[in-house]
C-alpha cells in the first residue's frame, strides 16, 4: 500500500485536491441555495412555500449519481459545454442544497416563535428580525449538522469518478488500472479519504456534545 502511495503520490494528491475543491465549492454554493430554499419553505406566502417544499422533496428522493450524470450528459448536448468536474460539482451542489435546506429550516423553526414576535414588536422588520435575532440562535444548532454535510460531500464527491472529474476516486481507478494492484490502491485511496473525514467527524461529535450540554 505504501509503495503505491509513494510512487503515485502526485496523482493521488491532485485527486485529493479536486475532491476537496469540489466539496468546498459545493458546500458554499449549497449553503446559499439551501438557505434560500429554507426561507422559502417557511415563507408567509403559500405558493412560495409550495415551490420550496417541492424542490426539497424532489431532490432529496433522487440519487446524486442520476443528477450528476444528467448534467454531464444532457447539458452539453443542448445547452453548453460542461466538463466532468463542473457537472459533478453542480450535481453535488443541487443534491446537498436540499439537505441543507432541511437542516436550516429545522434550525430556524427550533428557535421559539416568541423570539420573532418579540423582535417584531420592538420595531424590527421581518428580515432584520431574521438576521439579527433568529439566525444567530439557529446557527449553533445548525453547525454540527452542516459539518456532517461536509463529510458527506467529501464522500459523495466520489461520484465525480463516473464523469471523469479528476477526483480521488477517479485517480484511484486510473492507478489501479495502470499498476494492476487493485487492493493496495483502493486501500491507499481509502486512507486518504479517512484522513479528511475522520477528524471532521470526531470534531463534529465533540461540538455537538459541548453545545448540547451548554
Amino acid at each position, binding site marked *: 500500500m505504501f509503495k503505491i502511495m509513494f510512487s503515485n503520490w502526485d496523482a493521488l494528491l491532485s485527486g485529493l485536491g479536486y475532491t476537496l475543491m469540489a466539496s468546498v465549492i459545493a458546500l458554499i454554493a449549497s449553503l446559499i441555495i439551501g438557505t434560500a430554499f429554507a426561507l422559502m419553505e417557511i415563507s408567509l406566502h403559500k405558493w412560495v412555500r409550495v415551490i420550496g417544499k417541492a424542490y426539497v*422533496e*424532489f431532490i*432529496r*428522493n*433522487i*440519487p*446524486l*449519481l*442520476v443528477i450528476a*450524470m*444528467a448534467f454531464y*450528459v*444532457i447539458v452539453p*448536448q443542448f445547452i453548453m459545454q460542461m466538463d466532468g468536474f463542473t457537472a459533478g460539482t453542480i450535481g453535488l451542489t443541487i443534491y446537498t442544497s436540499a439537505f441543507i435546506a432541511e437542516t436550516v429550516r429545522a434550525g430556524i423553526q427550533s428557535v421559539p416563535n416568541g423570539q420573532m414576535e418579540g423582535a417584531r414588536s420592538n420595531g424590527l422588520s421581518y428580515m432584520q428580525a431574521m438576521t439579527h435575532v433568529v439566525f444567530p440562535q439557529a446557527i449553533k444548532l445548525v453547525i454540527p449538522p452542516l459539518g456532517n454535510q461536509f*463529510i458527506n460531500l467529501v*464522500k*459523495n464527491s*466520489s*461520484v465525480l*469518478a*463516473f464523469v471523469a472529474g479528476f477526483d480521488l*476516486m477517479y485517480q*484511484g481507478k486510473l492507478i489501479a488500472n495502470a499498476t494492476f494492484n*487493485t*487492493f493496495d490502491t*483502493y486501500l491507499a*485511496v*481509502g486512507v486518504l*479519504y*479517512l484522513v479528511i*473525514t*475522520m477528524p471532521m*467527524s*470526531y470534531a463534529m461529535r465533540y461540538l455537538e456534545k459541548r453545545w448540547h450540554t451548554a
Partner: protein
Amino acid sequence: MQNFINAYSAVNLSYLLRGLWVTIEVSVVSIFFSFLIGTLLGIARYVKIKYFSAIVGFIIDLIRNLPLLLLLFFTYFALPNIGLRLSVIPASIVAMTVFESAMLAEIIRSGIGAVPVGQMEAARSNGMSYSQAMLQIILPQAFKKMIPPLVSQFISLVKDTSLATIILLPELTQHAQIIYGQNVNYTIPMFVALAVLYFIVNYALSVGSRIIDHRLN
C-alpha cells in the same frame, strides 16, 4: 416528443422495470440485514463494554467515513480472496449491508441515548434484568422516536444502490445507461424516467414513515 414515445417502447420500459426490480430487491434485503446488524452494533456501542464497545465504535466510524463506492469495489474484488465467489447481486447486498449497518448503528445508539436514564432504572428496580429492560422498555421507546431518521437512511440506501453500477449491478440506473448508450436520442427520456421512478419509490417510503410516525407519537 417523438423521442419520448420511441424511448418508452414496451421493450425499453420492461427493461427499465427489470432494473427497478433489482434496485428494490437489493434495497429490501440490505435494509433487512442492516437493520438487524445495525441494532446490535448500536446497542453494543451504547452499553459500553470495556474494549469491545470501543473497538466496535472505531470500526463503525471507519466504515461511516468511507465513500460507499470504495466499499463496493473492495467487497466485490476482495470476497473471492476468502474463497467466496459471489455474483454481483449478493456482493452488492454485502457491501450495502456493511455500509448501512454502520450508518444505522449511529442512529440507533443516539436513539437509545435519548431515552431518559430513569426509564432503565425504574425497570431494573421493578425486578427486570438488564436485557429484559433493554428489549421491553428502552428499545420500543427508542424506535418510536427514531422512525424519521431511520426511514431517511433507508431512502439513502435506495438511492445509493445506483452507485453499484460501478460493479455493473444490473439495477435501474445501469439499465437506463444501457438504453441511452445505444441511442443518444433517448438520453432525456431516460433521465426523466429515472427521476420519476426513484421519486415514486422514495416518496412512498417517506410518506409511509410520516403516517407511522404520526400514529405512534
